């Protein structure tokens, strides 16, 4: 009954007053930024990274995780009520959710989405518990060559699922790896690309980079286009009718399964889960013509899927130390700031942190149902705050946060510099997420690569001689070949086009 024992340990950590408080703070902040368009979980977590430095490790990870899944809840609220997706992952919820709201069923849509999300979050948490141990045990058998190949697979898979051109996304990964080299070389102590700046000798801090790339660039892009807002819809009864509930349940279960599976994949995560779930519902429905006109399934399935995916995307990060999307890359960063090296050792060396974080996810999901349903009116009021008040506030928090990393204005200037770079990326259609993944994995990947080559006496054959490494590399190659096939290429482009409209 090891599992049971672990869960009890986790619950005892998560239920301490301090951790409950930080889970609540995380959920509130997450809901807030989920409701507000123009600022997403990536930018927020980047902004708060420096602050987590002042908190104990478990509390800070619990808070950041709360922001991530809280954003999924908050995002759906605005999608349903004002037809404005707060997050990318709730874009599909707009389609049927807003139609339901216009027919006076806003309350029902909100309840179904909140309860569906809660169900999905619970299942997602159980999946993490079940898979964490076997995966970790497997990862402990990995040698340096295997790790290097695993990271290659993670990076390539992230690219495949990224929006836009595959080739550009691969180039962005390599650019991220290149930026990751900045600092002192671990093996020889040589300074690389540091320009004699002391702040750079420990390696480039990626909190300011993430703030610049995601926070500042996002603000600038939002300032360029005028934001229009339609009026909010009044919420009357929160209860779904029996007919609605009957249609919603199976959709929630299907969405949870699909989202849970897609969340584990590198590069997957909530957005992909939500889109796939919506497409699936439309395909298997006996009355597909109802979709787009307020079909309950069109709200229930994607909402469950994005939440399930948000949970399960923690699995590769917690067990292998490999982030599957930009938010997980930041979580890895938060662990490194706290002096914890993410990877299979986390579970054995820090069981309280590991199981505490997992248990807190379920508690957080429960809190979110409470935060979201009765307090819906308050969140809607927040939508009326104009963006011109919001943007200077976000900038200010980024600037102070960056400064507080090491009490150095160098980091503030770094935010400004990477803001400009991030803006250039947006203008040239280059994705920031692959860059961030490359940046985070770069230093480790180089270390494993050099160690593997040293152990094999300079023979690159080591990467194909070890069965684990070979298997991972073959999977990577298959993914790349699949991308080049015209059929899949077209389907992929179509999927992302739907996403943009």
């Amino acid at each position, binding site marked *: 009954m090891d599992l049971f024992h672990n869960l009890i340990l986790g619950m005892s950590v998560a239920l301490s007053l301090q951790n409950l408080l930080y889970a609540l703070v995380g959920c509130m902040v997450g809901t807030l930024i989920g409701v507000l368009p123009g600022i997403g979980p990536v930018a927020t977590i980047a902004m708060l990274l420096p*602050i987590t430095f*002042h908190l104990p490790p478990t509390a800070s990870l619990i808070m950041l995780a709360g922001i991530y899944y809280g954003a999924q809840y908050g995002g759906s609220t605005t999608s349903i009520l004002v037809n404005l997706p707060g997050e990318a992952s709730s874009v599909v919820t707009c389609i049927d959710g807003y139609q339901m709201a216009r027919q006076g069923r806003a309350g029902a849509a909100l309840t179904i989405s909140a309860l569906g999300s809660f169900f999905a979050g619970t299942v997602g948490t159980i999946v993490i518990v079940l898979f964490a141990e076997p995966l970790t045990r497997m990862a402990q058998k990995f040698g340096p060559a295997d790790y290097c190949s695993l990271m290659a697979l993670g990076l390539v898979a992230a690219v495949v699922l990224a929006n836009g*051109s595959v*080739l*550009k996304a*691969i*180039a962005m990964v*390599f*650019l991220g*790896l*290149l930026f990751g*080299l900045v600092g002192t*070389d671990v*093996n*020889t102590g*040589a300074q*690389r*690309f540091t320009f004699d700046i002391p702040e750079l000798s420990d390696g480039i801090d990626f909190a300011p980079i993430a703030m610049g790339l995601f926070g*500042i660039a996002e*603000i*600038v892009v939002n*300032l*360029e286009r*005028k934001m229009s807002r339609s009026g909010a819809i009044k919420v009357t009864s929160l209860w779904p009718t029996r007919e609605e509930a009957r249609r919603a349940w199976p959709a929630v279960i299907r969405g949870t399964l699909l989202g849970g599976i897609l969340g584990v994949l590198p590069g997957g995560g909530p957005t992909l889960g939500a889109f796939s779930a919506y497409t699936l519902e439309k395909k298997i429905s006996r009355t597909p013509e109802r979709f787009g006109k307020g079909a309950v399934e069109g709200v229930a399935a994607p909402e469950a899927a994005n939440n399930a995916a948000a949970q399960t995307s923690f699995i590769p990060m917690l067990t292998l130390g490999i982030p599957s999307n930009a938010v997980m890359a930041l979580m890895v960063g938060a662990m490194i700031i706290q002096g914890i090296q993410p990877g299979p050792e986390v579970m054995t060396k820090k069981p309280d942190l590991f199981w505490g974080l997992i248990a807190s996810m379920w508690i957080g999901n429960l809190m979110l149902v409470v935060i979201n349903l009765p307090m819906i009116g308050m969140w809607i009021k927040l939508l009326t705050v104009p*963006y*011109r*008040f919001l*943007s*200077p*506030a976000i*900038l*200010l928090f*980024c*600037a*102070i946060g960056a*400064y*507080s990393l090491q*009490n150095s*204005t160098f980091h*503030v*200037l770094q*935010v*400004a510099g990477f*803001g*400009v770079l991030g*803006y*250039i990326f947006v*203008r*040239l*259609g*280059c994705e920031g997420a692959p860059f961030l993944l490359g940046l985070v994995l770069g230093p480790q990947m*180089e270390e494993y*690569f*050099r160690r593997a*080559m*040293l152990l094999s*006496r*300079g023979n*690159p054959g080591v990467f194909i001689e070890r069965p684990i490494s070979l298997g991972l590399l073959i999977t990577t190659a298959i993914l790349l070949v699949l991308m080049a096939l015209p059929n899949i290429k077209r389907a992929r482009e179509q999927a992302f086009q739907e996403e943009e409209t």
Partner: protein
Amino acid sequence: MSRFLSKDFLAGVMFIAFGLGALYLGRHLAPGTSVRMGPGWVPHALSYIMLVLGGIVSVIALFTGGEQVEAPKWKPITMVTIGIVAFALLLESTGMFPALVALVLIASLGGDEFKLWEVVANIVVLTILCILVFKVGLSMNIAVLNGVW
């Protein structure tokens, strides 16, 4: 001429520029041998990969055309950047409050609606919030106004 202004072509050029830049800046790093890699082995390898990828991206873009890059609006990006730089320069010499005022004021000028009373109200609210969060809540060592508090 317009095919040189496509997003993909310019992105390719940017990748090449980063590759060349890294090669130049890392020229003194010894590559070493493949058994005992020096500090320069991986940087050099990555730089060459950047050059190749950048080359492929831009050449493909030249032949296929592709999406044109949108003309950037200079005001928001310039104002936001100036605002943050001003904040960085003012923070340690004068304290948090003047830096905050400068950042909020300059950044607000980057938007398309600017009403003075709104910006002043925003500054007041943010100042109180920052003092509460950073000074009281996290007890960070930042002076609100140098020499005064």
